[in-house]
């Protein structure tokens, strides 16, 4: 009888199901995986080293480019760590705006995740549906910061500017769109940004129902997800899993509840928890998280409507003064010049700030020696720990399940490779 040996299979780095540039070396026994060795670093840009050469505000836009589907949450961890070192108080309105945009970002991230995950597993329609809703949310990004993806909206001390009173509108008749169509597209853009978001939050639960109709009881979806990539609670803790990956294994842990930052302790929301720790449970957890995010956004809109106020700390050693002040006040001009030419000094010390990022615990560790640039910055990316657990999760599964596991881990290479 012929001897049967294991063989090695190269998966990626350019593969549509690899969600970017993942190279997997799979040791296979027939179609069963014996060992998976992910090779990462193909998108390594040295963000941490670059941050050491730039002052604090200059490296903020790099944060958008880490996890490029949940931009503002990355910025949030960054500004929180800087504020912690500076002992800076953030105005309450800015905190609400940040929380609202964190949750918008969470929905953005989960929509991309469900679209890509379902597409990998074989459900084409989800991708189109999810991107339909992402379009509206990216319009919110655009309205508030001018950029649809890489917002650079948060600043140490608050947010760059207050919410706008108008929404960008569709313009101009063309051979693709008649005047009536354009008017219909502008239907929910007559009011302020808050009106637009409120209109979205009213529609969104219906959309999530649509997704669930397509997937939750779908026989193929369940066959592909149930009992794939099971993590027991003990192993999940050992492997450093956080966020939905940990909650899917039945551990009720959410930084928004357990170590509340900004105004999360004033908001009412629930934490969904799985029971079996398989891919299907993580799917259910993330779907419920979208509904809960929607709830949080509604509460933020309600508060923001009734409470105008500053959105940036008044401490001009750190935050730039207004344009008007600069024209009239010599000291304001000097502050601006110093901030633009060398930034602000940060007291000597170290700080670690973590947020509940859509993917898990995203943390920034600053080590400052009192200069205007961080001495060392470390980015704690949730995906890095998740991908390290990949080997354990795919062992004994079929080749096709690797794709499911990559999907369920919600891998984005911007943050893993940094």
């Amino acid at each position, binding site marked *: 009888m012929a001897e049967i040996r294991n063989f090695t299979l190269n998966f990626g780095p350019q593969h549509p199901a690899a969600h970017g540039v993942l190279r997997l070396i799979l040791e296979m026994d027939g179609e069963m995986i014996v060992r998976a060795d992910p090779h990462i670093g193909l998108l390594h840009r040295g963000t941490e080293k670059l941050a050491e050469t*730039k002052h604090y505000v*200059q490296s903020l836009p790099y944060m958008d480019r880490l996890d490029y589907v949940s931009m503002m949450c990355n910025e949030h961890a960054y500004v929180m760590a800087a504020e912690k070192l500076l002992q800076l*108080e953030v105005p309450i309105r800015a905190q609400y705006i940040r929380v609202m945009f964190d949750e918008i970002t969470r929905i953005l991230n989960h929509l991309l995740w469900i679209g890509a995950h379902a597409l990998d597993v074989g459900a084409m329609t989800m991708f189109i549906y999810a991107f339909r809703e992402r379009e509206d949310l990216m319009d919110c990004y655009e309205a508030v910061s001018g950029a649809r993806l890489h917002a650079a909206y948060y600043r140490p001390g608050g947010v760059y500017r207050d919410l706008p009173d108008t929404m960008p509108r569709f313009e101009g008749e063309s051979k693709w769109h008649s005047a009536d169509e354009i008017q219909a597209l502008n239907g929910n853009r007559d009011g302020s940004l808050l009106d637009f978001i409120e209109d979205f939050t009213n529609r969104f639960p219906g959309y999530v129902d649509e997704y669930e109709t397509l997937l939750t009881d779908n026989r193929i979806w369940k066959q592909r997800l149930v009992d794939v990539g099971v993590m027991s609670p003990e192993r999940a803790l*050992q492997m450093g899993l956080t966020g939905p990956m940990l909650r899917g294994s039945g551990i009720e842990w959410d930084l928004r509840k357990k170590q509340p930052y900004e105004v999360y302790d004033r908001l009412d929301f629930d934490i969904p928890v799985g029971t079996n720790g398989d891919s299907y449970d993580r799917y259910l957890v993330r779907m419920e998280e979208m509904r809960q995010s929607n709830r949080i956004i509604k509460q933020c809109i309600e508060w923001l409507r009734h409470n105008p106020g500053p959105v940036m700390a008044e401490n001009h050693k750190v935050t730039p003064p207004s344009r008007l002040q600069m024209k009239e006040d010599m000291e304001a001009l000097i502050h601006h010049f110093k901030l633009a030419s*060398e930034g602000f000094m940060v007291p000597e010390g*170290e*700080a670690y700030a973590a947020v509940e990022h859509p993917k898990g615990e995203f943390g920034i*560790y600053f080590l400052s020696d009192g200069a205007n640039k961080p001495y060392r910055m470390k980015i704690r990316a949730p995906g890095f720990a998740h991908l390290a657990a990949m080997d354990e999760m795919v062992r004994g599964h079929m080749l096709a399940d690797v794709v499911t596991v990559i999907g369920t881990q919600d891998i984005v290479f911007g943050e893993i490779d940094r």
Partner: protein
Amino acid sequence: MSDYYRQLETRLQERFGSQLSATHVEISELTAELPREHLLSVCEALRDEPEFAFEQLIDLCGVDYSEYGNGSWSGPRFAVVYHLLSVRNNHRIRLRCFCDDELPVVPSVINIWNSVNWFEREAFDLFGILFEGHPDLRRILTDYGFIGHPFRKDFPISGHVEMRYDPETRRVIYQPVSIEPRDMVPRVIRDDHRYHDLSAQEEQ
């Protein structure tokens, strides 16, 4: 929060005593420094004893102190910083372990927290810190065949080599970098009264 961490600091000192070389609480964060001989025993106790119960290793990173404070640093050059999290007790701790300048070696905590595998590979790749007992200490983030440890302070931001396609030899070649280093915003440490007043102004 600070009070809680001060109590935890006291408990930590009572339990470990001279095994820790320093502890302090700053901005509601507890930091403990320890020599590498005691690293494994302290870490194991921190994970297993119910009053600490740090089940999760959240992060590990290397630090190169050689240019700290514009060269005023006199301690050891390399350190490994661990961030631990207890899900049961809802608290965090930061551990710092300094290592020798010439051959930075630290025992690997991989048998205590399995999640440290890739984090230690990363610190090895970027700083050249060796982790004794790590089963698979390969480079992780840099390119195949990369030379040097890029996050050390003596490694220039532009690197040493650049890569391009050479039409003559018809292959991709490495050559010394052609860009000149530039620094748009100089690194400064100002020690004037403006920054001392910062906290006093806040209080008013």
